[in-house]
């Protein structure tokens, strides 16, 4: 059996008195999509930051594409990429200029050709020459995704990948991501508050609560196990406890 794209074991991260990640462990096999769910402060962004090498853990082991991210992250970084609404691209540079810079940073062969290809696939041709600062939120999301796909990553970390997209574009992006994963055997790790998106894209879901994995499994299994109809209801059940969800249903019945 091949090595998983992501293998996290006994991961802890403490910020002063706060334990942001409290002993989690999980794997993401190649060719699959996993989702990290959780409320604000649950530990999703901290976990993604550690996987990207932006943050050093207090304890634990992180292997990405077979490489130890604590000691050999530069062996893994050319093979991975990420997109997040919490970071940005230089606003004065055009879309093409930004993608060119990142193409060179990732050592992409045939940068111009790759940008043209992504512009077609993500429908960006109309604003390729426009400064990033003059794009709509939805256009920026597509540009961020294009940047994340420039180097044809084998591991793609996505934080709210369809934020600000209209339903039609969001659906096309999800389809694109599924095709990309299947065509390249890539692993996708998704942090999202859009439960319908997670249900559709993810083979496996980890629900984080106060830095711990409170439950995990395929979305369908979780829904059945909790006797709910959607993943959103499962999420609310775990986040608020059984009484909280009963209260919501009670309010809806009135």
């Amino acid at each position, binding site marked *: 059996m091949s090595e998983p794209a992501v293998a996290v074991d006994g991961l802890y991260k403490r910020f002063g008195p706060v334990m942001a990640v409290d002993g989690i462990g999980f794997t993401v096999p190649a060719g699959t999509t996993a989702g990290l769910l959780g409320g604000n402060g649950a530990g999703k962004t*901290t976990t993604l930051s550690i996987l990207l090498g932006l943050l050093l853990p207090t304890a634990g082991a992180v292997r990405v594409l077979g*490489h130890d991210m604590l000691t050999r992250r530069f062996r893994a970084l050319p093979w991975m990429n990420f997109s997040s609404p919490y970071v940005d691209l230089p606003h004065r*540079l055009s879309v093409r200029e930004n993608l060119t810079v990142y193409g060179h940073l990732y050592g992409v062969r045939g940068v111009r050709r790759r940008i043209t290809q992504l512009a077609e696939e993500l429908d960006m041709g109309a604003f390729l020459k426009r400064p990033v600062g003059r794009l709509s939120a939805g256009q920026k999301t597509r540009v961020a995704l294009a940047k994340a796909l420039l180097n044809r990553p084998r591991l793609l970390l996505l934080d709210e990948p369809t934020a600000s997209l209209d339903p039609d574009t969001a659906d096309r992006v999800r389809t694109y991501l599924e095709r990309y994963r299947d065509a390249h055997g890539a692993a996708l790790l998704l942090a999202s508050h859009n439960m319908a998106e997670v249900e559709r894209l993810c083979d496996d879901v980890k629900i984080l609560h106060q830095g711990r994995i409170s439950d995990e499994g395929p979305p369908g299994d979780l829904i059945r196990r909790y006797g709910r109809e959607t993943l959103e209801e499962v999420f609310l059940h775990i986040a608020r406890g059984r009484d909280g969800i009963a209260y919501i249903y009670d309010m809806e019945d009135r």
Partner: protein
Amino acid sequence: MTAHPATAGGNPFRRMGALVLRNLYLVRSSWPRVIEMAYWPTVQMIIWGFITKFFLTHSSWLVEAAGALIAAVLLWDTMFRGNLGVAVSFLEEMWSRNLAQIFVAPLRPWELVGALTGISLIRTLIGVVPAAVLAIPLYDYSIFAMGLPLLAFFTNILVMGWSVGLVVAGIVLRFGLGAEGLAWLAIFAFAPLSGVYYPIATLPPWLQPVAWALPSSYVFEGMRAVLFDGVFRWDLFAWSVGLNALYLGLAAAFFLGMFRVARHRGLLLDVGE
């Protein structure tokens, strides 16, 4: 793992070149930035040019080398621009919330340091060369007449600017954008100690050892030796090179240390005041 099918493998010069390209795109997109780079060195040169004209009729010291003040102001601005080229280029990434994107690319921190110095060189040339050229018709003085010694002075003073810029960038990385004012202010602490416009012997005796610990002091003394005595002082040059090598190494180590602290504390994503 075999070579990535989409990439040309690890080429540090291509990655550093990518960051230089990013800054060239930025400069190209904004003429006010180019004008701002050249504006202050030009204004400084004009002011000191007129002061020189005045002192030529009142100072026998300056009569011996009429260009000393203009050359000093241009070299001082080289150090100032060298510092800004590193510190402000780094700040640009923080202002545009681009820092995390850069650090998850396969760009090693030392490659970032290399790229910042390359960007600084370009920004300094854009800023200082027009002022130096303008001094020729305005005051009939060409700093280029110094010849090869000018290259030695320029390189040394630029490298000292890089050291200051790297320390400032490290402090901003650690303490956030609240410390960004240091990019413009910190370097001025070195002006009175470097003997930009006067010999180091002018300083009080207790302060002179501090001055002689700075590479810039050797550059300005060396410049005066060329202009007044027509001698290139190899001893001064060797001291400035040695001290620069030491300080640049320490400054780079400081920046990389702050980068490691930032990775511990989660500061690379949380960029702000």
